[in-house]
């Protein structure tokens, strides 16, 4: 069938009914709105560095600055071990997925409230909003990743075949952010308390993730609990894939994937359920 908009879907019937306690996820509709997803992501990226002098350089400054601070205080002064890799590379390699996650989480959690003018004026699958907020972080990540490659070259760190795992790990980081972001964005519509907890949450989460230190310093008896944090698997995975750390983070990674799948499924249903009231309470 042609894409002629008038006749493409004449036979379709939209049924409008009271809120359902168990709505479906609506994958098909989400797919139909993929272009909106693209445009909203594109808007966020485009607008982010408008009217800034440094523009996209900001995407690099933040992790670089964090790296300097961490290298100075943890690497130099506290003497935190770094698995035999130069500490700056060691921490920068972890900061990238971390920043991607932290940025995406904050953006998606505030996305519905930030787009309330859309939500109260036009219909589209609301899932588009937090998803596009999460995707927007990928560009910054890509820019910073180039810097990481340069640094690795300068420090003489050569990645092995494991580098092919990076896209999968990026996906896992994004999914983690989305899973948590779905819960928080929906909650944020009703309880603006969420907005105030996000910064706090991200800070605590940073210390619960092996960004400034190797996960090997975590005592064995806490490892199981520690692995429940999906970002542990992501960050360990990054170091394994890029810095050639010997042991593969198979088990923590598997736990991460399971935890994220559970969080994501729950988040999707929770979101879809609350979504039906967004326009009334936002």
């Amino acid at each position: 069938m042609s894409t002629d908009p008038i006749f493409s879907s004449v036979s379709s019937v939209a049924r409008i009914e009271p809120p359902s306690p168990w709505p479906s996820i609506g994958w098909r509709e989400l797919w139909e709105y993929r272009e909106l997803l693209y445009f909203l992501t594109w808007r966020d990226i485009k607008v982010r560095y408008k009217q800034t002098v440094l523009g996209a350089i900001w995407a690099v400054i933040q992790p670089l600055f964090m790296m300097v601070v961490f290298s100075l205080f943890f690497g130099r002064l506290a003497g935190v071990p770094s698995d035999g890799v130069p500490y700056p590379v060691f921490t920068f390699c972890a900061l990238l997925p971390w920043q991607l996650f932290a940025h995406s989480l904050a953006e998606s959690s505030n996305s519905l409230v930030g787009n309330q003018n859309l939500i109260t004026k036009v219909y589209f699958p609301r899932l588009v909003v937090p998803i596009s907020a999460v995707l927007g972080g990928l560009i910054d990540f890509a820019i910073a990743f180039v810097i990481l490659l340069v640094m690795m070259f300068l420090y003489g760190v050569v990645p092995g075949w494991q580098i092919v795992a990076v896209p999968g790990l990026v996906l896992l980081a994004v999914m983690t952010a989305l899973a948590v972001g779905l819960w928080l964005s929906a909650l944020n519509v009703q309880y603006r308390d969420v907005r105030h907890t996000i910064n706090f949450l991200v800070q605590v989460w940073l210390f619960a993730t092996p960004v400034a230190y190797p996960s090997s310093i975590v005592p064995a008896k806490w490892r199981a609990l520690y692995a429940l944090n999906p970002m542990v698997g992501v960050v360990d995975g990054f170091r394994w894939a890029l810095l050639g750390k010997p042991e593969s983070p198979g088990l923590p990674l598997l736990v991460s994937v399971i935890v994220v799948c559970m969080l994501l499924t729950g988040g999707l249903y929770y979101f879809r359920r609350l979504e039906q009231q967004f326009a009334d309470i936002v």
Partner: protein
Amino acid sequence: MSDLAIRCEGLSKRYRIGTSRESYKTLRDVIAGAVATPFRRSNRNGNSNDGHIWALDDVSFEIKHGELVGIIGRNGAGKSTLLKILSRITKPTRGRADIHGRVGSLLEVGTGFHGELTGRENIFLNGAILGMRKAEIERKFDEIVSFAEVEKFLDTPVKRYSSGMYVRLAFGVAAHLETEVLLVDEVLAVGDAQFQKKCFAKMREIGNQGRTILFVSHNMSAVRNICKQAVIIEKGAVVAQGEINETVDRYLSHLNSSQSNEAVETNTFSISSVQVGSAAGPVIKTFDPVEVRVRFVPKTEIRDPGLYVSFLTLDSRRLTGLDLKDFITTAPLPAGQVAELGFTIESLPLLPGAYQLEIHLKDMARHLVEIIPRTFEFEVAETDVYGGRKLDRWFGNIGLRARALDMSRKSAKAQR
């Protein structure tokens, strides 16, 4: 395919009012609410006392494909709620609706416009938000740009646009949304006269393509100009549906009937009623034949009766007046009997709006003039006088039957 475009069955929407109407809740409110609920249970059956209000209550109607329907009602009658439910922005509390075909809704001009983005970028963004495909926007792009008349500013951020340009661009995108069903909320109340006219023309064009439009507006002239049918909503319920002019007239006359014209006493006269009515229908429209009738009982005999009627604006500016003695000499009126004097006006040249009548009753034999100590309001219904746009104060009060001189045709002839 059925020929029904929209079918609503018992649509109802309940909103919470009072404390929970704040734009958002905090956890503390929820905790406080949980503590308070046990004490609130007692008055659950009350319709509005339990902190809820039915914005829509059991609304049912059907609209066929290709119909242009105006949704009319006072502020807070539930028009916008209905539109929001049909647009799927919010869900009904009860009831259901079926909409056949793709739905586009314009509840606001320029939803999702971003000031930092250029006109070109906003066309794509706004189009996507309204549900257009990228290919569709690309196909319509030139049409949108020329409709909005912003060719020169396509690559300027819209935050630098004048408000007129901004609105034109926003409406331009929306007007090219090609859905079978279009839900429109008063977005036409913006822009200059020429652009409004263009918008009306576009809406009618959309209607002529066999698409269905639901148009919510306070502007009766626009509704009459665009729509062929009307649905009247009052207090959340549909009270009438029918042909546009008849239904709008009924609605307006109903609005006016609330004004009481109770009896007024002066020294010499007891006025029982002052009526202003159109011979053409239930409401008075510009250029309608109109009758003014003053019924009264003289307390003493009036040998040479006189009547002066003056048309005033609501702020008591005198527009024009009529004196009966310029038309006829009236026979004496005996005391204590009902008498009626008045005028028929062939064509009332007043623009839509509210006016008042000032009335003087006289006995010229005694040089007696009594000014009735109150005025009588009447309303000229909003109609399509000059092409359907809302006439603001710049138009004054007097309607002129006019046509433009068509200079362009003349000059074209001259050139040949």
